[in-house]
């Protein structure tokens, strides 16, 4: 498992390759978040961020067969088109990889202590949390969605 909170960019194909080496890995699902339209600054809570992400990945590993996982989240100043976050999950089969990847992303949105400040031409403003993100995380509660 690799968790990194960093200012610098990452290379999707290099990260996928790193978790694909085991002979029993048959699927890697990955998600990349990208800055849309407006420049932003991302702040986080050093220490808590890493442990919150670790806990989310451990929770996912308890629900699905996760063979390896990489989560990279950037902070600092980012421009439109920049990559913000990578979640990549290696598993034997695609069902586990897809489900765990989506679960980690949904929980990261509501549990990991990051805050976005957007720099609009008229001034800077903190992004408001969205109820739809809470709903996305909430749908994983209750009976575990089975991977097929």
């Amino acid at each position, binding site marked *: 498992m690799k968790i990194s909170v960093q200012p610098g960019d990452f290379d999707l194909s290099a990260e996928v390759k790193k978790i694909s080496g085991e002979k029993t890995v048959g699927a890697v699902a990955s998600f990349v978040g990208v800055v849309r339209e407006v420049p932003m600054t991302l702040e986080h809570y050093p220490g808590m961020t890493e442990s919150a992400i670790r806990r989310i990945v451990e929770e996912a590993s308890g629900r699905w067969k996760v063979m390896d996982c990489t989560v990279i989240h950037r902070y600092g100043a980012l421009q439109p088109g920049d990559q913000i976050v990578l979640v990549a999950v290696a598993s034997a089969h695609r069902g586990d990889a897809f489900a765990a990847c989506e679960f980690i992303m949904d929980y990261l949105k509501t549990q*990991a202590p990051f805050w976005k400040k957007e720099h609009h031409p008229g001034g800077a403003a903190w992004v408001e*949390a969205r109820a739809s993100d809470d709903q996305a995380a909430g749908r994983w509660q209750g009976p575990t969605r089975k991977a097929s």
Partner: protein
Amino acid sequence: MKVKVLFFAGLREQLGTPGEEIELPGGVTTVGGLRQFLSEKGNSWKSALAEGKLVRMAVNQDMVQPGAPIKAGDEVAFFPPVTGG
């Protein structure tokens, strides 16, 4: 008892401080109690931390509910709902 209090993002800006060590009166034993105590420090504190404001709390870097206990030496953080990803 003394605790370390931290503020992040919009809350840090509203309060004009990233945090401080504070000495708590004896009656403050929970993170919700600490929030109440801090909200009485002044106008900007009241408007940032008053009941009804969406504030998340963490004790020793674990997200907690307002009833969570605090003890001497704890690191207690207050911040807006998170917006990463």
